[in-house]
């Protein structure tokens, strides 16, 4: 699904990601961990193609196509979707209108999807304006449910979400990643940034990666990585690389 080779990314003239290599196969979910400021969000934004994230070398191949220089919306059309950690507020643009503009779904279908995440009363509200932390996450999930991407990038889906909402979010994200589909037939893939690992209470991940100072330091079993980080902190990962 996604093949990143030797990727270097600059932000404001400074290299933030160095020599990233990442392969995510069809049907796989990967977890990305790392301390604050290590470059996790930068990686997601570079994959999505945001301005200001300059790829100085390396390549991003998605579904066999080189998307390294492709505009954002074409990547979205190819099947890449992203849940933003801090989405912008867009005053005047009703969430319902945004959903209608980004899909071919009718009003009824959108309404039904909104009901599933308790967002039906937000369709007539300005996108993300005055939404609480949990509402922003539900709004993001709803937008992705409408978009139905094949490859889903989630930037800290747990942050700012209470327990009740976390359960709803966890189940919805599992649904978006086709966790209910048998592993042989599962097509959708995901890359999830998490600090807490709570998301793993709701879905299984196939691989974990630790990003430190813009470099992927290790790959491995996600639960094992989470356990080591919980017990020893990221210092262990820094030391591990130096050994």
């Amino acid at each position, binding site marked *: 699904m996604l093949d990143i080779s030797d990727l270097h990314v600059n932000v404001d003239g400074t290299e933030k990601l160095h020599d990233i290599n990442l392969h995510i196969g069809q049907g796989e979910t990967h977890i990305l961990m790392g301390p604050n400021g290590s470059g996790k969000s930068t990686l997601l934004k570079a994959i999505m193609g945001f301005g200001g994230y300059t790829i100085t070398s390396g390549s991003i191949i998605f579904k066999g196509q080189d998307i390294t220089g492709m505009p954002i919306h074409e990547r979205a059309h190819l099947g890449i979707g992203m849940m933003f950690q801090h989405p912008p507020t867009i005053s005047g643009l009703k969430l319902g*209108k945004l959903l209608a503009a980004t899909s071919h779904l009718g009003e009824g279908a959108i309404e039904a999807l909104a009901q599933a995440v308790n967002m039906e009363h937000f369709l007539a509200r300005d*996108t993300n304006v005055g939404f609480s932390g949990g509402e922003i996450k539900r709004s993001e999930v709803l937008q992705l449910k409408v978009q139905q991407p094949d490859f889903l990038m989630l930037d800290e889906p747990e942050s700012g979400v209470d327990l009740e909402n976390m359960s709803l979010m966890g189940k919805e994200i599992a649904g978006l990643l086709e966790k209910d589909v048998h592993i042989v037939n599962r097509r959708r893939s995901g890359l999830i940034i998490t600090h807490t690992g709570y998301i793993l209470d709701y879905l299984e991940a196939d691989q974990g990666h630790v990003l430190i100072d813009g470099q992927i330091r290790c790959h491995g079993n996600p639960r094992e990585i989470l356990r080591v980080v919980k017990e020893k902190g990221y210092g262990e990962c820094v030391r591990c690389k130096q050994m």
Partner: protein
Amino acid sequence: MQTDVTDIEQLSEKDRERLALTGLEVGMQNRCGSFFQVDQNVIQTTCGAEGVEMLPIKTALEKYDWVEDYYWNAVSRDKDKYTQYLAKQENPQGLVVIANEGVKVAMPLQACLFLRDEPVQHVHNLFIAREGSEINIISGCASSWQKEHGAHIGVTEIYVGKGAKVTSTMIHNWNPGISVFPRSAIIIEEDGTFLSNYVCMQPVNQVNMYPTARLVGKNAVARFSSIVVATPGSTLDLGSRAILGAEHTSAELVTRAITTGGTIISRGHILGEKDNTRGHIECKGLILKDGIIHAIPEIEGRVTGTELSHEAAVGKIARHEIEYLMARGLSEEEATATIIRGFLDVKISGLPAVLQAQIDAAIDKAESGF
């Protein structure tokens, strides 16, 4: 040259399309009354709403002595050279609307002012809403597509009686060589509500106006909202003023301004003269192509019990907003248009659906030009 038009049907297809954009319903669907003035000729005055009268101003002054009391009352004859010009006209034209006590009409009355052949069109309107009445007026002002130069000078005096509500929606559709000088004032009595919506999204040489609402009775409310676009060569010097002259009055002035190369001066002034009054000015401007948006919000409090605030912001569309929508699959152009559409979407509470639809249509029409 004097106009020879005596019927709307005599106007060219192109002109009728221009008028439709300002809200004129030739077939009168969704309208309960209609006034149509071409240059200085009133060619239509009909009103099907019971308890509401629509009259050319000359007829109204002849028919009712008391109309004199409202004529040049809210607006002074000597205000400026434009009012002076109007005051010396021997044949004043324009519309008088009288809503009788307690009469509530949801369906809008339309007033259409069309500049076609003469160099200057002048109008003097009086809207009188008596105690407990409610009326909606949609004023469409336009010039013929072939009219290259000209001026429109208009005085509108609006009287909102006790507990009455007047919604005035004005949509302009001029040409690049037309200059427009409306001079309006509103007097709002106790528990009265005045809502004003102004839309100007097509090229014009200049529009210069600064309507003033005087809230003279307790609990009176005034809201002005303006949605304007200045294309290259257009100068829009716009503003509104509210004088909170009685306790528990409130006013809100909201502007959405876009320049694609023209100049917009967005003024606003709220004067808090009495206790327990509130006022807020909000001006948001988008500079899509180099032009000028100059916001001048003024709030002036004179007693401890007044609360006034303003916010103004001028700039371009935030890049991260565009990219957010692009990540959902919209192209850069689609994302930009969607954000602009949202920016202009100022929903006014209490505005009838047909009027909102008219404003939306004007925005949709202009949007294709961004």
